[in-house]
C-alpha cells in the first residue's frame, strides 16, 4: 500500500452571498495516495474549483479538515500555508500560468528559485522534464512564442520540478484542441505515475479520464460517483462530453440552497 498524501475529512464549504448560503462543497471525504492520478469531474457549479482551492490551501473549509502528508492545513498560519504551497504542491491553472518575460526553462526554474534552491545544479532536471514533455526546441523561448499546448506543458513541468507531494491541475486542457489535450494529459499522467506524486485534475472533458486511476464525480457539492474500475472509466471516457453537461443541467434545479 502506498503512502497517503492527501486526505479530506468531511470537508464542507458554504458561501454566503446576499443572505443566501450556498453549499458549494458538502461533506466530502477522500484519500489520495502517492502515484495516484485522480480526475475530478462534474457539471458546472458542482463545486470542483472550490474543492481544488481547499486542497490547495487557498481556501479555508467551513467545516472538516484537509491533511497533506499528514499535516492539517487548518492549523497553519497564512505564512505557513504560503510556504507549504511552494514546497509541497505543484500547480497548473487553466490560463495565465507562465510569467511572460521568462523563457520556458526560466519559468520552470522559478519554482526552484522560490524554494531557495541553487538553480545551476538543477538545470539538468528542468531541461529533462521539458524534453520529456517534447519541448526540446522551446527551452529558451518566451511564452508568447509558444502554442497554448506548449505553454500548458511548460506549466506542467513547473508543477513537477520541485518534487511536490501533491500536484493540482485546474482544467489544464480547457484551451487546447483534442489532439493536444490527449498528448498533454498523457504526458502529465506518465510523469505523475513515474515520479509517485499524488495528482488531481479538474476537467470538463470526460475523454481525459482514460489517463487517470479514479474518477470522482461531483454533483451539487457532493460526490455522486466514485469510479475506480478501469472498465467503467473507459466507458465513461468514450461517452461524449455532452452527457455530463446534461446531467449538470438537471442537477442545477435541486441545488442545495439554504435560506
Amino acid at each position, binding site marked *: 500500500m502506498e503512502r497517503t498524501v492527501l486526505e479530506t475529512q468531511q470537508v464542507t464549504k458554504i458561501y454566503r452571498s446576499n443572505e443566501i448560503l450556498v453549499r458549494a462543497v458538502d461533506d466530502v471525504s477522500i484519500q489520495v495516495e502517492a502515484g495516484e492520478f485522480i480526475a475530478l469531474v462534474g457539471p458546472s457549479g458542482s463545486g470542483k474549483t472550490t474543492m481544488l*482551492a481547499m486542497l490547495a490551501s487557498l481556501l479555508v473549509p467551513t467545516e472538516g479538515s484537509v491533511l497533506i502528508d499528514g499535516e492539517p492545513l487548518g492549523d497553519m498560519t497564512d505564512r505557513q500555508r504560503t510556504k507549504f504551497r511552494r514546497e509541497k504542491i505543484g500547480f497548473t*491553472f487553466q490560463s*495565465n*500560468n507562465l510569467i511572460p518575460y521568462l523563457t520556458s526553462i526560466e519559468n520552470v526554474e522559478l*519554482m526552484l528559485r522560490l524554494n531557495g534552491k541553487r538553480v545551476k545544479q538543477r538545470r539538468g532536471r528542468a531541461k529533462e522534464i521539458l524534453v520529456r514533455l517534447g519541448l526540446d526546441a522551446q527551452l529558451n523561448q518566451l511564452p508568447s512564442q509558444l502554442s497554448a499546448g506548449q505553454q500548458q506543458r511548460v506549466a506542467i513541468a513547473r508543477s513537477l520540478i520541485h518534487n511536490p507531494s501533491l500536484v493540482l491541475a485546474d482544467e489544464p486542457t480547457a484551451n487546447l484542441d483534442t489532439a493536444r489535450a490527449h498528448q498533454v494529459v498523457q504526458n502529465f499522467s506518465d510523469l505523475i505515475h513515474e515520479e509517485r506524486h499524488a495528482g488531481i485534475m479538474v476537467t470538463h472533458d470526460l475523454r481525459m479520464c482514460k489517463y487517470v486511476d479514479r474518477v470522482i464525480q461531483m454533483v451539487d457539492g457532493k460526490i455522486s460517483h466514485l469510479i475506480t474500475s478501469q472498465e467503467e472509466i473507459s466507458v465513461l471516457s468514450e461517452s461524449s462530453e455532452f452527457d455530463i453537461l446534461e446531467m449538470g443541467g438537471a442537477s442545477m434545479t435541486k441545488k442545495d440552497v439554504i435560506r
Partner: protein
Amino acid sequence: MALYLSVKEIWRNKGRFFLFSLVIALIAILVLYTAGLASGLASANKEYLEKLRADVLVFKSGVNYSTIESRIEYDQLRRIRLLEGVAEAGPIAFSNAKIVFDSEVDSIDVSFIGVDPGKPGAPNAVLGDNLRFAHSKVVLVDQKVAEDSNVSVGDFIKLSSTQGEEDEVYELRVVGITDGQQYFFRPSIFVSLPVWDRYRPKATAGVYRNKPDVNVVAVLAKDSTRLAYLPEAISAVIDDVETTDIQTAYESAPGYSEQQATLGTLQGFTLLIGTLVIGGFFQIQTLQKIPQIGMLKAIGTPDRIVASMAILQIIFVTIIGVLLGGLVTLGLVVGMPDNIPIQFSGSSVLTALIALLLIGPVGGMVSIRLALKVEPLTALGM
C-alpha cells in the same frame, strides 16, 4: 528572487521601461533646471549682500529696505560709528557703470560699488591687494568681471559713465580680484567712496564730494551681547534710519521673494506631476499583471517578494531616469552661454535630487498596495 524577477522583466521589456525612464528624465531635467535657475537668480541678486561681513544693515527708514531708495548721510554714518557696541561701520554706495574696451569686444555692465577701504562692505581680494587708500584710482574687480574682460592684477580697465550730457571714460588700475560678488544681476567692481562719487554716472557733471551720501551702512557689533540691542539702539538714537539683517535685506530686494516663490511653485508642480505620472504608469502596469501576481501568490510566492519586485522596479526606473536627466542637465549647462544665471549650488540641487528620487516610491505606493491586495484565488478564476 525579487531582484531576479524585476531585472528580468525590465530587461525583456527594455523599450517600454526605457521610454518611461525618458519621461522621468525629462521631469528631472525640468526640476533640476528650475532649481539651478532659482539658485542662480538668487545668487545673481544677492551674492554681494550674502557675503557681506556685517551684523546689522542700516537703511533710511520707510524705504522697505530698498538699497536704491535708501540714503544715509555722512553725518549719520559718523554718529553710528560713535555708538556704544559698534565695532566697525562701513558705508556702501551702489551705482551702475560699463567696462569698455578698445577693441570690438562688447562692453560689460557692472555694479559700481563704493566702499571705505578696510571697513565692512569692502570685500577681500583673493588675488592681489585690497583697496587701501581713499583717493587712489584703483579698483577691485570680482572674478566674473576678471574672466569676462580678461584682466589680471596690474592691468587697467576703462570705465564708462554718463556725466551730464557726455559719456566719459576713466582708467582704473586693477589692484585685486575678489571671489564672486554679483549684485542686482551684475558682476561688481569696487572703489573707494571719493573715487565712486567722482566717476559714478550723474546728471550734473563735475559735482562730487569726498564724503558723499551712501545707500546703506554695514555695521559689525563688538560682541554678541551687544549685538542683541544694537539694531534697536541704532534706530532709536539716529534719526530717520531703520535696521535689519542681511537676509531680510536681500529678501526685500524688488522681486526677489516673488521670483523665488514662483520658481519654487514651478518646481513643486513639476514634482507633483512626476509623482502622478509615475504612480499612473506603475498602477496600469500592476493592473495588467493582476492574473500573473495571483498565479505567483498561488504557487507560494510570499507577499514580501511581491512587494519587493514592485519597489525594485520603481527604484530602478526612477534612478535611471534621474541619472539620465542629471547628465542631460549637466550637458545643457556646460553648453549654455555664461550670461544665463544658472547655478548648481550643492544644497538646492541635492534637495531637488532627493525629491526626484522620492517621487518614484511615493507615486508607486498605490501600485504596491494594489499588488499586495491581489488574492491568490484569482489564479483559479475565483
